C-alpha cells in the first residue's frame, strides 16, 4: 500500500481577474516511495498548476479532492512546512531576488529546513564545504554563489541553480517543472545526473517535461499524460516514446 504521495480527485482554480478559472479538474495520482514519475502534456494543461498546488502556493484555491504526503494532509500545510517535510519544487521559471546573495539564500534555506527537521544547523564552514561539493558536481562556477539569486542568470544557469538547491535541501519528494528546457546537451546530462544520483528508496520525484530526451537520462517508473486538468493516461517509460512520435492526438481522442 502506498502512503507516500497520494492525490485523489484534486480540483483547483484560480481567480483570473475576478472570474474563477478551473484549472485542475480531478487529478488522481499516486507516487510510491522511491519512484520517479513523469508528467507530459500540452501547454496549458495544468502541469505547473499541479506543482504549485502541491508545494503550497496560495493563489490557487483547492475546490475538491485531497493530497496526502507521508500520511499528512499536504494541503493543510504552509509552503515552508511542506519544504520541511521533504517537498521540493524546481520552478519552471525561477524567481529573481535582487540583492540577495545566492550563498546566503542557500544557507538560510538549508538551515531553516534543518532546524524544522530537528537537525543541527550548518555553520559557515560546513555549509561552504557542502555547497562546493554540489557546485562541482553540477559544473557550476563558485561565482554563481556570490551573485544575487537568479538575477542575470542565463536560462540554463537558473535551472542548474534549482538543482543545486534541490540537492542541498535533500527532499524526499522533488517536483521538477521543465527543468530540462533551455539546457544544452551537456547541461542536460549534468542535471540528469544530479537527479539520478539521488535515486534510491528515500527519494521520489515528479518530472514534468515536454521532451522525451530527458527521460532517456532519467528513466521514469511511470509516465502520465495530462490534458485539460486531468491525467488522461498512465503507462511505462514507453509512453514518452509514443508521444514523441505521434503527439497527443491519439491520447486526447481516446480520452474524449
Amino acid at each position, binding site marked *: 500500500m502506498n502512503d507516500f504521495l497520494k492525490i485523489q480527485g484534486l480540483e483547483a482554480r484560480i481567480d483570473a481577474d475576478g472570474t474563477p478559472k478551473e484549472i485542475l479538474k480531478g487529478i488522481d495520482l499516486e507516487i510510491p516511495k522511491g519512484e520517479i514519475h513523469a508528467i507530459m502534456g500540452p501547454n496549458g494543461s495544468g502541469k505547473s498548476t499541479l506543482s504549485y498546488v502541491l*508545494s503550497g*502556493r496560495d493563489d490557487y484555491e483547492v475546490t475538491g479532492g485531497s493530497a496526502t504526503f507521508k500520511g499528512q494532509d499536504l494541503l493543510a500545510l504552509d509552503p515552508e512546512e511542506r519544504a520541511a517535510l521533504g517537498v521540493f519544487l524546481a520552478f519552471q521559471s525561477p524567481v529573481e531576488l535582487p*540583492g540577495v546573495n545566492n550563498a546566503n539564500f542557500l544557507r*538560510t534555506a538549508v538551515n*531553516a529546513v534543518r532546524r524544522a527537521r530537528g537537525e543541527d544547523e550548518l555553520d559557515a564552514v560546513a555549509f561552504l564545504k557542502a555547497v562546493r561539493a554540489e557546485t562541482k558536481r553540477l559544473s557550476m562556477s563558485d561565482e554563481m554563489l556570490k551573485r544575487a539569486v537568479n538575477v542575470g542568470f542565463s536560462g540554463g544557469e537558473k535551472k542548474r541553480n534549482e538543482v543545486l538547491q534541490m540537492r542541498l535541501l535533500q527532499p524526499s519528494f522533488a517536483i521538477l517543472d521543465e527543468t530540462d528546457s533551455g539546457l544544452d546537451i551537456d547541461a542536460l546530462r549534468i542535471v540528469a545526473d544530479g537527479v539520478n544520483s539521488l535515486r534510491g528508496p528515500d527519494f521520489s520525484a515528479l518530472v514534468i517535461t515536454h521532451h522525451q530526451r530527458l527521460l532517456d537520462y532519467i528513466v521514469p517508473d511511470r509516465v502520465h499524460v495530462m490534458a485539460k486538468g486531468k491525467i488522461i493516461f498512465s503507462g511505462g517509460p514507453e509512453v514518452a516514446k509514443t508521444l514523441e512520435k505521434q503527439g497527443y492526438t491519439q491520447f486526447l481522442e481516446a480520452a474524449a
Partner: protein
Amino acid sequence: MPAVTETRETVEKLAKSSYEWGFETDIEMDIAPKGLNEDTVRLISEHKREPEWMLEWRLKAFRMWLEMKEPEWAKVSHPPIDYQDAHYFAQPKKKPGPKSLDEVDPELLKTYAKLGIPLHEQALLAGVEGAEDQKRLPVAVDAVFDSVSVATTFRKTLEEAGVIFCPISDAIREHPDLVKQYLGSVVPAADNFFAALNSAVFTDGSFVFVPKGVRCPMELSTYFRINARNTGQFERTLIIVEDGASVSYLEGCTAPQRDENQLHAAVVELIAMDDASIKYSTVQNWYPGDDEGRGGIYNFVTKRGACRGARSKISWTQVETGSAITWKYPSCVLAGEGSVGEFYSVAVTNNHQQADTGTKMIHLAPNTRSTIIAKTISAGRSDSTYRGLVRMQPKARNARNFTQCDSLLIGDQCGAHTVPYIESRNMTARIEHEATTSKISEDQLFYCRSRGLSEEDAVGLIVNGFCREVLKELPMEFAVEAQKLLQVSLEGSVG
C-alpha cells in the same frame, strides 16, 4: 602609601573619570520649570558651567528662534507641538520606573529578545528601577568593554593618538578655541527652526577632534557613553577632522529606545579639511509609537558636513527604523576642490510612521563628486518621502552627482514619494538620477517559502537584499545588527 589604598584610590579615580568620560548628568541637579524663555537658557548654561561667550551664543540663537516659524513643507503631519509645555533641562531623574521586568510592556521585551539583547540590558533599556545600580555598562558596550579598566585603555589609546573625544559640555570648557571656531560654522543657529532651538538649549552630545595626519585608531561610538540609555533630547555633535586625518563615528543603537521626551531635535556638524575623511553611521530605532502611532518620538534633526579641504570626503550612512515622525536631511557642502560627498540611507516605516528624509549635496567647487543611494521601505499605513537636493553652483566645474532612489512597498496601504530637486548652474556638471518603485511580489515570497523560509524570514531576506548597497557601507558589526533590526521592524507587515 600601602598598595591596597593606592589601588583603591586608583580604582576610584578610574571609576570617577569614566563617569566623566561618560555622559551621566548630575543626579543632584534641579529641574527647570516647564517652558522656554531666556531664563531657561541661562539656567542650562549655568548648570553646564559654561563660559560667558557660550551663554551669549545660546541667547542669540534663542532670540532668533523666537522670530522663526516651524517648517510646514515636510510631508509629515502631527498635532502642533507646544514648546512651552516641556522641560528643557533635567527631566525628573527619579520618576518611578517599572519595578521589574514583569511590569514592562511585553511587546517591548519581545523585541529586545529578538534583537538578542541580554536580560540585564533589557532591564536597563526598559528603565527598570535599580537596573543601573549593577555596575555594568549598558547596551553593546559590555560586549566590548565590560570593565572600567578596558574603557580607560580605550581612552588612553585615543589620547596617545591625539584624538579628543568627549562630551560637548566638557569641550566647551576645555577646548574653547576649537569650539568657538567651529560650533555653528556648518549649521548656524539661523539655519532653521529646529537648529535655532537646539543651539539655544542643547545639553548633550559629542565632540571629536582628530588632528593632522591621524587616522583615528578605533571607531568612535556613542555606545561608549555610560548613560546611553538617556539619549538627550537636544543633542549637539561637532566633529572636526584636520588635514589627512580620518575618523569613523557610529551613532545610535539598534535596541528600541523609549524616551519621555517626544520632541528630539539634534544638530550634527562635521568639518573635513584637506584630504580628511569622515564616515558617520547612524542606526536609529526610537520608539515609533504603538500600532496607532500614539506616543512615538518626533525626530527633527539637522545634520550637515562641510568638506572644506581639497579632496576631503564625508560619507553619511543611516538606517532609520524608529520614531513616529522623522525629519532629517544629512547634507554635504562640497567646498574643497575634488571633495566627495556620499549619502547611503535606508528608511523603514511601518504602521503609522511618517518619514521625510533625504539629503542635500551642495557642490561649490570644481571636480566635486557626490553619490546618493536612498532605499525606502514602507509597510502598514506608513508614509515615506525621499527629498533630495543636488545643487551645482557656478564654480562647480565637472562636478558629478549620481542619485539612486529605490522604494519598496509592502502591502497596499502605504505610500512612498520621491521628490528630487536638481539645480545646476554649471554647464559642465553632470547629474544622473535613477528611481524605482517595487513591491515584494507573491512570486518572491512563495519562492522563498517553498525553500523552507518562514514568511517573515523571507521578507527579511528580500528587504535586506533590497538594502544591500547601503548595508555594506556600515561597519561590520553594525551591519549585522541593522539586518536583524530591519527584519524585526517589518514583522507582521505581510499576510
